[in-house]
């Protein structure tokens, strides 16, 4: 059957072109992510030997030693891993779709094979053989692309600052092996369902005159679709009550599950929706519009395959970007709402304010309060593990004056040695309350058993642990200070800012009103967020275009007879083109609308899980990026369908409609 597979790939190259490109791109992206990941692994995580360390004993009596200064590559690693996972998901999705469509277009061939005596397993082997015949060269092409792209990617990654140290290109062998093997695996995975379907084609299908679309909704498809629908609905229903941490995966995977369900169940609900969309078309363009409306309504499989990729890509990208930017927007809104201090003081040079600077600020008569937390990392012991946690040295009372902080448990008082204040999130996660004991250790120090005197609810203004003054030596100097002015001075914050700058020295500090500072900080954060979004979504968007274009090329490869027939009946070339245009526009629009609905449900659930002081979390949508992606999908679809129609129209002159293929 291997020989037949090869013949078939050569003959129906248009049906396999989409799979080839999707797979090559998938292998290239996975290989590039893997090589960048390997580069982060190659960085020694403890660059300086002899860093201060601390040994803590967890609840089970096991001692753990942690050192300070370990490089944290977790962030960049998780972004890279996520990019790889998104690529793999979309690759399998696209390949499954194109394979299923390819089989549907070749049912007669499968029937003929069965008629001549091919057994189900033989047909199955032929389909798997085809997929390997495409996958092997595609994997090689992808690997070649990795060799070129990997060094560039590592360079680019160093340029973004996502990684705390400069990465160096590791040997490519293992990333390539991994990506190629993954590509072959994905190809087989994507073809399995299609090959089962092909093996079930009955011999009598060879005698069918038309490629009938009668049974697009199979039992397996319905069951999987309903299962996905229920899974997605349950996840999104749980998300609002799950807390910000757990809501992220719930909202993301819930949205993805809904998108898969929407694709699988497409044949059920797409025809009535399309009929509805066709009403204005029939009115606006009686001939071409009517033809397009009938064509998308009757060719249910083709329509489902065209709506599928647009829907899947927009849903995945929409969900990721909306969750990321909504998180950022909610944190910022919460910060703004919690900040009472009118001024923010930053060092003019370097990274930190000195103790003198802070003292000088406090000395000004118009200043009511200054909070300048000195951040540090500590090790914390739990019941069965020891981990690093962010902490800060600051007087909770000062913090509570410059920020709106509520005391959930205990009382606001200056921290004495042997006491700590903890954030509400930390307390809830690890089960602490006022009076309970936290065991922590400063690096280079000894374990400290401290009593929790207060549990504070202050969003990002309150670090997980607030330590007493004794730890200040181990902490870095504060990176900024929040200044609360007394009532009379508050009216002229800008004037006071100028005077404070003069008083401490313009070469040492920069004093800006809080609102202005938030504006600047937000731009920085946005730039970083957009970078992460780009890493995650640009590859996925490339897929959208390939999948849309591939499906269209496939479907037009089988429409020669149809278009020749229309021409013979007197439909003008211009009308055929308009029909193609209407078809593509209506199917893409439908895909966009359904994706928007799915993403809106996910975003609504996620937003419900976020808390912002004194209001609702804002919903941030990357309109620019999403509309660019939508436009690209629609544009690619329109261009490919017009090009394909043009080709068929040129052939239609010489082609007979009759029996010959």
């Amino acid at each position: 059957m291997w020989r037949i597979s090869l013949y078939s790939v050569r003959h129906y190259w248009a049906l396999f072109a989409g799979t080839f490109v999707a797979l090559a791109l998938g292998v290239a992206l996975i290989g590039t992510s893997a090589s960048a990941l390997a580069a982060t692994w190659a960085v020694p995580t403890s660059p300086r030997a002899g860093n201060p360390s601390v040994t803590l004993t967890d609840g089970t009596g096991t001692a753990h030693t942690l050192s300070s200064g370990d490089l944290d590559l977790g962030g960049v690693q998780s972004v890279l891993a996520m990019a790889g996972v998104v690529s793999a998901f979309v690759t399998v999705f696209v390949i499954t779709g194109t394979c299923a469509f390819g089989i549907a277009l070749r049912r007669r061939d499968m029937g003929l094979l069965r008629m001549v005596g091919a057994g189900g397993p033989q047909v199955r082997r032929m389909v798997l053989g085809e997929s390997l015949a495409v996958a092997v060269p595609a994997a090689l092409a992808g690997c070649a692309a990795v060799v070129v792209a990997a060094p560039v990617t590592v360079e680019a990654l160093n340029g973004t600052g996502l990684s705390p140290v400069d990465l160096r290109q590791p040997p490519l062998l293992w990333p390539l092996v991994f990506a190629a093997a993954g590509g072959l695996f994905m190809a087989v995975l994507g073809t399995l369902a299609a090959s089962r379907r092909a093996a079930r084609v009955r011999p009598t299908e060879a005698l069918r005159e038309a490629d009938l679309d009668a049974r697009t909704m199979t039992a397996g498809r319905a069951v999987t679709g309903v299962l996905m629908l229920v899974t997605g609905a349950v996840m999104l229903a749980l998300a609002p009550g799950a807390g910000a941490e757990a809501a992220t995966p719930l909202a993301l995977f819930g949205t993805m599950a809904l998108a898969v369900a929407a694709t699988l169940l497409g044949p059920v609900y797409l025809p009535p929706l399309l009929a509805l969309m066709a009403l204005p078309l029939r009115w606006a363009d009686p001939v071409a519009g009517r033809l397009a409306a009938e064509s998308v309504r009757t060719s249910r499989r083709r329509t489902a395959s065209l709506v599928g990729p647009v829907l899947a890509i927009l849903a995945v990208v929409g969900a990721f970007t909306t969750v990321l930017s909504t998180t950022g927007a909610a944190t910022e809104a919460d910060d703004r709402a919690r900040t009472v201090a009118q001024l923010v003081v930053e060092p003019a040079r370097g990274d930190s304010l000195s103790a003198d600077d802070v003292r000088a600020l406090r000395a000004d008569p118009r200043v009511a309060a200054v909070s300048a937390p000195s951040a540090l990392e500590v090790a914390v012991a739990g019941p069965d593990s020891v981990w690093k946690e962010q902490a800060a040295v600051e007087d909770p009372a000062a913090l509570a004056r410059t920020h709106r902080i509520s005391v959930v448990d205990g009382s606001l008082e200056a921290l004495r040695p042997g006491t700590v204040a903890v954030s509400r999130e930390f307390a809830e996660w690890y089960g602490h309350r006022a009076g309970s004991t936290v065991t922590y250790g400063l690096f280079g120090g000894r374990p400290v058993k401290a009593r929790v005197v207060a549990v504070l609810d202050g969003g990002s203004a309150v670090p997980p642990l607030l330590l007493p003054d004794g730890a200040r030596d181990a902490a870095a100097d504060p990176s900024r200070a929040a200044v609360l002015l007394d009532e009379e001075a508050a009216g002229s914050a800008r004037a006071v800012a100028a005077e404070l700058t003069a008083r401490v020295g313009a070469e040492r500090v920069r004093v800006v009103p809080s609102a202005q500072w938030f504006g600047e900080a937000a731009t920085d954060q946005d730039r970083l967020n957009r970078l992460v979004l780009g890493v995650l979504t640009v590859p996925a968007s490339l897929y959208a275009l390939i999948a849309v274009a591939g499906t269209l090329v496939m479907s037009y490869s089988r429409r020669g007879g149809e278009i020749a027939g229309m021409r013979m009946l007197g439909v003008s070339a211009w009308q055929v083109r308009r029909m193609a245009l209407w078809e593509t526009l209506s199917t893409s629009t439908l895909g966009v609308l359904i994706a928007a609905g799915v993403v809106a449900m996910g975003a609504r659930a996620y937003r419900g899980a976020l808390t912002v002081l004194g209001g609702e979390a804002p919903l941030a949508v990357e309109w620019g990026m999403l509309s660019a992606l939508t436009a690209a999908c629609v544009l690619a679809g329109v261009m490919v369908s017009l090009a394909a129609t043009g080709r068929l129209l040129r052939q239609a002159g010489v082609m007979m409609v009759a029996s010959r293929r």
Partner: protein
Amino acid sequence: MSLLTDIQLPAVQLAAVSKSYPGAAGSVPVLREVSLGFSQRALTAVMGPSGSGKTTLLNCAAGLDRPDSGKVLLGDTDLAVCDERELTAVRRGRIGFVFQQFNLLPMLTAFENVALPLRLRRRSVKRDRVMEALREVGLADKADRRPAQLSGGQQQRVAIARTLVAEPEIVFADEPTGSLDRHSGRQIMELLRAVVDRAGRTVVMVTHDPAVAACADRVVFLSDGQVVGRLDHPTADAVARRLSMWER
């Protein structure tokens, strides 16, 4: 012409075969208790008006469709109770098909289409044997062409060459000349005759055309799902007379 004698065994024997298809207003009977044998080493034509059940009869006899009741005996195998695996084996080794259209896999050359049954049986493909079959149907020079590069009659002949290579016990042909001009149609009928007379196989053919039916050893007339008549050693005139009789 081969002689029909009563001692010849039927290659395929249908016994009280009934088949109905689900329609808008309940199930529509297409075959009603048809009992019929197709003699060995003979060419039998099945005729009848549209909707009389010709194609369904052919499909049931070939094991492509399962009858609702009755038996379909190919030798001593009852095709009506075979499972899909057994039917595949039967199609692979014992039955050949020639249709009006869509006979060949479009991605394979004429040569590969003819060699396909051998490959499916995992036999070694002997080039000479395949070329010999193509030569017999007059297409040795077109072995490397794909179906799209062949005329309808040439495609039909490739399908016949395929049955010559596969050496099935019985060949089923559904309107084999239906979409061909008169000259190509005659070529096809000569080849099908040769399959019976020279290769000693059994051919069962559905047709509309009395002139084509006249090439058969026996014509079976079907009307409304029942066998309504037989004609041995037919002539085109005799066939046309019978048909006009039933059509009145």
